[in-house]
């Protein structure tokens, strides 16, 4: 689940757009591959066990307060969720130089500086309504740096489908009030519901206890989530036969267990990292070619077995 609006540094995908030049960390050398000793955090050994990584404490990017009626708990917002997807820099094949994206005018192909841009809403193909920054600022929700909670609900009654991005709330010289609030909602199993304004968007938000801290999770608006009933195929599903259902349920029972997120790890990322290590060590990367003739016999056996298994 990806947040609609995270802070720039938490979203690696932000790098592919030119909007946040600060997010483009320089890559040493011109090969696109980190040279020499990798920077801290660049190559990490994946955690083998079932426990989630504790991660490292980051910097606050938002500070304000939780407000419930007249009560204020000053807090700082910290990034909790990192997308660790692998990204490559795009290079010029000829000389290995990194490429950069530019805003180019579609009429004369000239690069347009930021200062000469305005925002437009496309009303019809090729027809735009132009908005000045002042006009947009007039309707932007005012960020008064408050997480306003208006209601408490059972945390387990929340629909995870609407969860957006989670942020850790850290007390801002408010340890006592923070601890009191945390203890109160942890005891009752409840979460506070309200709103938070980040940058120019107001989000519904829930504040709940998690792993010894308070976490604010933004929520999607109802019209941002498609309901299954929008699909005719799903509205017209036939009920299965009892015997089929019993068999399917047996399979489910046999595979039942406890949820452990540690069972999953990003294999593509691992493979790429080991490829990088090999390349850094000067190893040549070779691909195992399939052996068509050798494997032919196995394919015959496979065809037979697959058809037997399908009959079962």
């Amino acid at each position: 689940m990806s947040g609609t609006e995270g802070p720039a540094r938490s979203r690696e995908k932000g790098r592919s757009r030119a909007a946040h030049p600060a997010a483009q960390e320089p890559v040493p050398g011109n090969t696109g591959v980190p040279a020499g000793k990798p920077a801290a955090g660049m190559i990490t050994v994946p955690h083998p066990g079932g426990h989630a990584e504790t991660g490292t404490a980051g910097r606050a990017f938002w500070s304000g307060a939780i407000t419930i009626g007249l009560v204020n708990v000053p807090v700082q917002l910290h990034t909790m969720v990192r997308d660790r997807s692998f990204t490559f820099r795009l290079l010029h094949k000829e000389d290995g130089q990194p490429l950069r994206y530019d805003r180019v005018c579609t009429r004369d192909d000239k690069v347009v500086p930021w200062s000469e841009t305005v925002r437009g809403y496309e009303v019809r193909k090729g027809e735009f309504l132009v908005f000045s920054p002042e006009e947009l600022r007039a309707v932007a929700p005012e960020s008064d740096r408050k997480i306003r909670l208006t209601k408490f609900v059972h945390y387990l009654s929340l629909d995870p489908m609407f969860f957006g991005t989670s942020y850790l709330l850290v007390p801002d010289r408010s340890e006592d009030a923070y601890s009191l609030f945390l203890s109160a909602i942890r005891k009752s199993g409840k979460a506070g519901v309200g709103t938070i304004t980040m940058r120019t968007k107001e989000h519904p938000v829930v504040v709940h206890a998690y792993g010894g801290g308070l976490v604010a999770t933004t929520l999607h608006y109802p019209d941002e989530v498609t309901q299954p009933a929008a699909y005719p195929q799903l509205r017209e599903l036939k009920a299965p036969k009892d015997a089929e259902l019993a068999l399917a349920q047996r399979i489910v029972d046999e595979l039942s267990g406890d949820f452990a997120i540690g069972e999953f790890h990003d294999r593509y990322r691992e493979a790429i990292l080991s490829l990088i290590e090999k390349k850094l060590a000067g190893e040549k990367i070779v691909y195992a070619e399939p052996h068509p003739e050798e494997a032919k016999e196995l394919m015959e056996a496979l065809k037979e077995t697959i058809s037997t298994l399908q009959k079962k």
Partner: protein
Amino acid sequence: MKRETDPAGTEELTKVRFSNLDRVMYPAAGITKKEVISYYIRTAPRLLPFLFGRPITMHRFPDGIGGEGFYEKDAPKGTPDFVAIFLHHSVTADRDVRFVLCNNLDTLIWLANLASLEIHATLSRAASYESPDLLLFDIDPEPPLGFDAVIDVAKVVREHLQADGLSPYVKTSGKKGLHIVVPLVPGYRFADVRSYAHAKGTAIARDIPYVVAEFPQSRDKGTIFIDYLQNAGGKTMAAPYSLRATPEATVSTPLAWSDLTRGVRAEDFTMKTVLGTHEEPWKGILNDRQKI
């Protein structure tokens, strides 16, 4: 990720990329890894229903049985996505073990390609790891006694179980002995099953002088040991139809009780003999769950 080109069209049939197919696994019998993989593919319909949901231990021989073998409980690095993993906290090792569950054909082929000649499976399934669904008697001879004596004792064990209203199943261990297995209804604890098996062994040891029921005597010359200790959490037995690392490429072969007559030899049940028959003496074993 886009895969490399695939002239053999293997990708439609399996996601496993074969390697070192010509490596000799069984030097005396001249069996290559390709033949091992082919064996597991051909026995898959008989083997997979049993393995489903059961944590396994691999016994791998990358250089064949002439080289060194090693046991592996953990899914190795680079385990592909189609392999189901069961994460279990091992108290004895004080760490999480990522067990492989051989739930599909691709996993079985992948195991064979890893040169896991032997596949050992637990007596319980991942979903109820602490509760066995199989009772096992592991009957092993100590020379000069041999397979004939093992057969005699196995039949006595069977009579004792039948007296309790049970219908046990039998297979060769693939080494010198026999495994007697009773599929159980859900809910037993290993301790219950172990003490039941121990009591049977003790009773038989009282009647037959060369039978021993206790571990300390299990290596005494000229005895047959009825091992009840395998009925414990995390212990494994060679899966039915698992190859064994013996010169003859023996297989832990499910048998009908009528197959067991004196004169039959343990090493008669091999990769070749199993491939030569389509009989399935253990067919439906997991739908024949019994109460002890």
